Structure formats: structure tokens, C-alpha cells
């Protein structure tokens, strides 16, 4: 315990290009880029599948199937296979981001799809009856009603990406995982456990922030049922 404390309170460990602040910045950088890319692909696709009802089997199986793929193995294969072709600075970064995006898409896709699918058909019919065009129904009724599940999908993906981002250090990238990998290499348990503590706190904080944002964005009328529906569809992330 004292080893962690000594490591954490040393100002030298917080500043500089390999300090905690810089590593935290890198970690959040990878995570946000990944989440943004995954959301750009996953949300529209999920909405489309939910709206049209096409390809739902694909979504369900994809979300379940990806869970069984060992992240670490996928990351290593991507770096070994793609890395040499890309070369330079991109050799590690691009494969890692690609893997992170691939892992983040299924929960986002499943959230968007399940959200639209869970919309009460009566609400959809009412909107149609009022003369709304399909796109209007989607934008004015389906998306707002689906927001709770869209958010829980994003939240799962964010946690997944933060957890998997820790592994990126093992393929020579930055981020908070560096403290774990470097600490192990130098047999410095204080650094390892200190880094681990920071990652754990970051993950919990991000989860709480997502929960708070979800509460403010989602219409109050939808709040009470949301937790129950989210429970049923079980959009849990893997801790990677």
C-alpha cells in the first residue's frame, strides 16, 4: 500500500511527457477517437436495422459472438499482420485503433437497434397516423424513445474501450497501461498498482459521467422504464 502511495504522491510521476497527466491524455485520446468512429458507424446502422427490421439476426449474433473473441489475441494479430504494411508511426497505432473500434461497434449497434425496436408500436403508428414520413418518425419518435438504450450501448462501449486501451501499452503505445507494463518490467509494484488504481478510478468516473449525461438527455417521461428495459437487454461490456 505504501509503495503505491509513494509512487502517487511523487510530483515527478505526474508531470513530463511520460507522466500521469500525459498518459491520461493519451488514454482519453485513444478512447474518444475510437468511441467517435464506432458511434459514427454503429448508431446509424443500428437505427437503420431497428427501423427497417432488416438484419436483426446479424446484430444479435455479432454482439454475442464478439464477446468470445479474446481481445489481447486480436490486438496482437492486428499489429503483427497490419503493422509491417503500414510502417512508421502508424504501425502500432492504426491496428490498435482498428481493433478498439471493432470491439466498440457491437454494443453501440446493439443499443441503437434494441432502442428502436423497443419503441411502443402504438407510438410509431400514432406518428404515422399524424402523417409523418418514415424519416420524421425516426427522428421525432423512434430516436428520442430509443435514447436510453442508445446511451447504455455507448456507455458499455466506452468502458470496453477504456479497459482495452490499457492493453494498448503491450503493443508499445501510450496510455495509462504503460504504468502497468513498465512497472512490471522494472519490478516496480508501486508504479504498477498506482497505474492500476488510476485506470480503475478513470473507468468508474467515466461510467458515472455517462450515467449523469444519460439522466439529463433522456426525456423524463422515459426515465422509469429505462433501467428495466436496459436490464432485460443486458448491454453489459466485457472488462476486456
Amino acid at each position, binding site marked *: 500500500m505504501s509503495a503505491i502511495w509513494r509512487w502517487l504522491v511523487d510530483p515527478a510521476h505526474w508531470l513530463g511527457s511520460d507522466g500521469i497527466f500525459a498518459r491520461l491524455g493519451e488514454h482519453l485520446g485513444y478512447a474518444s477517437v475510437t468511441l467517435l468512429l464506432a458511434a459514427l458507424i454503429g448508431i446509424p446502422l443500428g437505427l437503420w436495422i431497428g427501423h427497417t427490421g432488416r438484419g436483426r439476426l446479424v446484430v444479435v449474433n455479432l454482439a454475442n459472438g464478439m*464477446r468470445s473473441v479474446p481481445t*489481447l489475441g486480436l490486438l496482437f494479430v492486428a499489429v503483427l499482420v497490419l503493422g509491417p504494411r503500414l510502417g512508421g508511426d502508424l504501425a502500432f497505432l492504426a491496428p490498435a485503433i482498428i481493433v478498439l473500434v471493432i470491439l466498440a461497434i457491437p454494443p453501440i449497434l446493439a443499443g441503437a437497434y434494441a432502442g428502436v425496436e423497443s419503441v411502443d408500436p402504438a407510438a410509431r403508428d400514432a406518428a404515422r397516423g399524424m402523417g409523418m414520413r418514415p424519416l420524421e418518425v425516426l427522428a421525432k419518435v423512434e430516436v428520442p424513445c430509443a435514447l436510453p438504450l442508445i446511451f447504455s450501448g455507448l456507455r458499455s462501449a466506452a468502458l470496453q474501450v477504456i479497459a482495452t486501451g490499457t492493453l494498448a501499452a503491450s503493443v508499445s503505445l501510450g496510455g495509462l497501461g504503460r504504468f502497468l507494463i513498465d512497472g512490471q518490467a522494472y519490478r516496480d509494484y508501486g508504479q504498477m498498482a498506482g497505474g492500476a488504481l488510476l485506470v480503475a478510478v478513470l*473507468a468508474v468516473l467515466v461510467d458515472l459521467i455517462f450515467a449523469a449525461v444519460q439522466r439529463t438527455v433522456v426525456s423524463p417521461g422515459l426515465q422509469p422504464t429505462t433501467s428495466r428495459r436496459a436490464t432485460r437487454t443486458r448491454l453489459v461490456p466485457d*472488462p476486456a
Partner: protein
Amino acid sequence: MTWFLGHLSQVGGLLATHTALAVIPLLIGLLLAVPLGWLAHRYRWLTAPLVAGTGLLYTIPSLALFVLMPLVLGTGILDPINVVIALSVYTVALLVRTVADGLASVPDEVVQAATAMGVGPLRRFFTVELPLAVPVIAAGLRVAAVSNVSVVSVAALLGISQLGSLFTDGFARDFVDPIVVGIVACMTLALVLDLVILVASRVLTPWQQRGRTA
């Protein structure tokens, strides 16, 4: 393929360790989650703290949890016990909510009928409520089993030997074959565990219609 055939016994040994590291926490987690899930279901005021509290533990990335375990347990960093306890924590985190949901899915009339027939609370729980909750609990257990198999492999970064060691060894030697073998072995193990739980759930609930997915 050639690499795999030449290293059958090595892969087999790692697979056995991997299976133990994934399955033991699953059983520990299930044993702990049943009483906790019952508490969460029985006492409304306990639901939020139990489900949210255990859920928060689930957000902690596995690598971080593996490293922090020695602090809590007083074990060495390389001790496989860290992995077993950390995965038990994840399993409990997933299953408390599932068990509570499963118990909530038991129709009230059934519970009332059992009570009216004079079945005591304890016997009612084990012979009526728990068996009827099996399909929901099994669904959660399948998720936990599959994710456990994948998460165990991360422990290879700390030097704990199992199928994940094929990833780290392959990566260190710039050699893709062992990594691919490791991925396929992991996915096969996950699939087998998933099937075992599915079959066990079907056997335990003969009243469920065949062909319906859990």
C-alpha cells in the same frame, strides 16, 4: 496448423489451466450471487445498492483488477488466485442482477399457490422459485462464462500462464501462428462452456418448450 500439431500437449496444458481459471470463478460467483440476488429481490431497499454496487465493480478493467488484487489479498502478483478472485468478482457483478431478475420473473400466483399448499419459505425457494428462475439465470451465466474465458487471457501480460500465453509468446517472437491457435482455442472453449450451460439449463427445466432459446 503445422505449429498446432507440433505443440498439441503444450496447448492442451494451457487449455486445461485456462478452463480451470475461467470455470472455478464461475461456480464461486454463482454460489455468491444466488443469496445476494435473493436479498436484492426480497428487500426493495437493498436492490439499488446491491445491483449498482456490484455493477460498479464490473466497470474496473480486468488488468487493473488483477494488479490490485495482491493488495487486497496479500498474495503475490503472479499468483493465479488473483485471477480466480477477480473473475469471481466480475461473475458476481453480472449475476446478482440476473438472479434478482430471474426471481422477479417467477409468476406471483405460483409463489402464492406454493405458500397456500403449506410450503415453507426455504423449501419454496429451492423447489419453486429457484428452479423457475433457471432460464434467466442460465442466460446471465452464459454471458459470464463467455466473457470469463476472454478475460482470463489478459492475465498473460502479468506472466500467469494459460492460453493467453500463446498471445504474448507469439507477439514477442513476431510469430502469428501461436496467437491464432490461442484465439481459436479460446473461442472454442467459450462455445463449449456456453453449450454446456445451455444444455444444463434445458435439462433442469424440462417443462420449458423445446427449441426456444434462453
